[in-house]
């Protein structure tokens, strides 16, 4: 079978905020670029982001990027790389102004400037008063950003491959990435896209948990592609559980609810966050709030007949604020709960939300693998990553709300900038690595086997339940060990799955089968990394090791698929121009 081939200078896999920001920069610079996405660009999950994007614009209260940097380092529980964090916080204002120029319909202040709301973990003056740093378009910021970015890509004539699914990277014997094998979902036909530089911007993997805030398509494909290409995943044990998902349902209610003045209450009507975080209260960091809710429920102060959730109170904000600032939230509550936040309490519970870990990159967006010598890094030539699938790492062990939308555009742009240079410095395409292509084709061919076997849906559900049970908010050695066994068993059983639908045209079952393989690889990375880390830091809470252990564990985890091996590398504590923020006890 001969596969069609297309050649581009640059290939961007993913058309969420990260991929579109990169694609726009590449297209505007005249680089011949293909942007591939398994869903039409505006259906990417960036569209669901609600609360906003952080930048120290100081439109509401005094602010500066250095305070933003401090909050981010502290929020990361000192696992974030301070060079990358400094870079991100410093360019944030410029990046947000740029978005405004692209047409993002930000909400406005009386003076006509971009409206900013307070979000968790934000402070003025290195831990002082609450800051208001999150630039918002009502509670539809992600939608506004994604659509504006797509619109500017239309203006720039970016070349899109809509509804093409990337199977795997092509990598030659010298370690260069030379493109990817994709399939056109509509026809089921494979296609090789060759490129001098490839960017992974495939987003998160929240679908590995049973209750999550993520879209059906958030299956961590890019991360699994990296793993299969011999590249490690970094810090996968750090998975964020958002405090305010609708209980049992998973839909997200933005932190902006609390930013606008909402708060949490237990069954006694007590505003319990005052006990856990006397200063920041409901706007403490997400890991802190999620654990507090968990504790309330465990100690019998949960709400509802089963006492299995707590309440978010918004009614005191008044109809006007709710309708102006949180209209989407109100819609969601009315549609899915028959409750109106203007009058009713809303049942919430921590919900799987965001992966801090991902494909290791430096702040130029280049993917860095483990080097030959212990503790060193080596750039993977021709490969870049940005957005939720990447780990720069600006979020470390816990991401602050509003910092992901920032991360995706900052590093989407930075990666594109470096791809442009790389493409110009390397005018010729490298040869197509036949061996690598054969391997990838094999992965696709495996799904042509027919016969009886478990179904994709059943195993996907089993995997999600296993992760929720054995690798959730609170963890210990024994449950994690069981988790590894369970996931390993599921990985084995996936080999027995057979597709009943062998058709080509728009076969969503085949896509879901490939996604299941991806999810399972990532779940394995997550539970293995979590099992090894014997401390509590940020979102990783070990009951058996409740303290943070800077002497032994202030380092990044690297998980390799082959042999399920782990390696570690130091945190980059040295910022670019300012002084390092040394680890301190984290209180809010």
């Amino acid at each position, binding site marked *: 079978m001969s596969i069609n081939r297309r050649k581009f200078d640059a290939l961007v896999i993913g058309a969420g905020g990260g991929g579109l920001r990169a694609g726009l920069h590449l297209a505007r610079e005249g680089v011949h670029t293909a942007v591939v996405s398994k869903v039409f660009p505006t259906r990417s999950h960036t569209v669901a982001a609600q609360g906003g994007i952080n930048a120290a614009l100081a439109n509401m209260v005094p602010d500066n990027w250095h305070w933003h940097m401090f909050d981010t380092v502290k929020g990361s529980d000192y696992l974030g790389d301070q060079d990358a964090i400094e870079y991100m916080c410093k360019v944030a204002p410029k990046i947000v102004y740029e978005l405004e120029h692209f047409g993002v319909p930000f909400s406005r202040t009386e003076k006509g400037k971009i409206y900013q709301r307070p979000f968790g973990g934000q402070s003025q003056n290195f831990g002082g008063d609450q800051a208001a740093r999150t630039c918002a378009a009502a509670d539809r910021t992600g939608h506004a950003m994604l659509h504006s970015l797509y619109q500017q890509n239309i203006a720039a004539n970016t070349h899109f491959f809509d509804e093409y699914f990337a199977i795997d990277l092509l990598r030659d014997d010298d370690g260069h990435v030379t493109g990817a094998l994709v399939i056109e979902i509509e026809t089921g036909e494979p296609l090789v896209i060759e490129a001098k530089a490839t960017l992974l911007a495939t987003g998160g993997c929240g679908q590995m948990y049973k209750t999550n805030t993520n879209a059906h398509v958030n299956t961590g494909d890019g991360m699994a592609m990296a793993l299969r290409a011999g590249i490690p995943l970094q810090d996968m044990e750090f998975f964020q559980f958002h405090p305010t998902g609708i209980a049992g349902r998973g839909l997200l209610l933005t932190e902006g609810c609390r930013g606008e003045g909402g708060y949490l209450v237990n069954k006694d009507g007590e505003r319990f966050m005052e006990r856990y975080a006397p200063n920041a209260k409901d706007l403490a960091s997400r890991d802190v709030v999620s654990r507090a809710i968990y504790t309330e429920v465990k100690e019998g102060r949960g709400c509802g007949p089963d006492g299995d959730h707590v309440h978010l109170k918004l009614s005191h904000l008044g109809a006007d604020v709710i309708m102006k600032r949180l209209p989407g939230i109100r819609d969601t509550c009315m549609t899915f709960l028959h409750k109106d936040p203007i009058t009713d309490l809303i049942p919430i519970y921590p919900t799987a939300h965001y992966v801090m870990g991902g494909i290791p990159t430096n702040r130029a967006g280049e993917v860095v693998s483990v080097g030959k010598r212990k503790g060193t890094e080596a750039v993977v030539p021709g490969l870049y990553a940005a957005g939720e699938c990447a780990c720069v790492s600006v979020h470390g062990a816990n991401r602050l709300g509003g910092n992901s939308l920032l991360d995706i555009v900052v590093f989407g742009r930075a990666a594109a900038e470096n791809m442009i240079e790389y493409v110009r410095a390397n005018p010729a395409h490298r040869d197509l690595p036949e061996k690598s292509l054969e391997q990838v084709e094999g992965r696709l061919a495996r799904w042509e086997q027919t016969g009886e076997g478990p179904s994709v849906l059943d195993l996907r559900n089993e995997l999600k339940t296993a992760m929720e049970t054995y690798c959730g908010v609170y963890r210990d050695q024994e449950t994690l060990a069981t988790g590894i066994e369970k996931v390993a068993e599921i990985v084995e059983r996936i080999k027995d799955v057979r597709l009943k639908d062998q058709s080509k*045209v728009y076969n969503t079952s085949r896509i879901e089968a490939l996604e299941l393989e991806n999810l399972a690889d990532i779940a394995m990375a997550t539970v293995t990394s979590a099992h090894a880390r014997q401390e509590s830091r940020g979102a990783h809470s070990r009951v058996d090791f409740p303290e943070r252990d800077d002497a032994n564990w202030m380092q990044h985890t690297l998980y390799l698929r082959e042999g399920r091996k782990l390696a570690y590398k130091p945190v980059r504590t040295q910022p670019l121009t300012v002084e390092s923020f040394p680890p301190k006890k984290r209180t809010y």
Partner: protein
Amino acid sequence: MRFRIYRYNPETDREPYMQEYDLPEIGADMVVREALIIIKGVDETLSFRHSCGEGVCGSDAMNINGRSALACLTKLADLAEPVEIRPVAGLPVIRDLVVDMTGFYRQYRAVKPYLINRDPEPEIEHLQSIEDREKLDGLYECIMCGCCSTMCPSFWWNPDKYLGPQALLQAWRFLADSRDQATDERLDDLEGPYKLYRCHTIMNCVEVCPKGLNPTKAIGHIKQLMLKKAI
């Protein structure tokens, strides 16, 4: 609950047909999307698009009991049995409930759906008053699901020439934006008997929009502006 679902796979079916499925247990708050996921668990061959599950990505527009709607926001409890699910009307079917939206996207691109501002870029944001920003409410929230255009008779009859409610709503979104400077150019682009003027105010679009947007009103605003310009 009984479902009748439109099935068509071009590789094996000469003609589309309706297939029946029964779901014995229906949760109180269940929506059509959840029912389809369960059905797909039983019958892998059923294809449909869906993603966010909360009415923001716009993937899962389909014709449910005769009208375009998002599967993820349509409650089973509100539907008469058997629930009849077909692909949205007016666009070519690729397979089952999946339609080819190329024409719909082409009309969107035709209205230059992006901010055009030719001034040198300011160092900071363009200023915009709260009142001017409010003019964009009810416009920018469009999720491009196509519920409106696929219920619009004018769009069915002139899919190539009439831009349809979605694209026209977006045309107005930029005309209404105080930061945009391409008003004349945008209006010129809408000249002619078809692009704009095929709207006969039938209001189907308004009735079905899952985001509560009002394309008819937007079209009215454009017509007014055209008139002003002509004078």
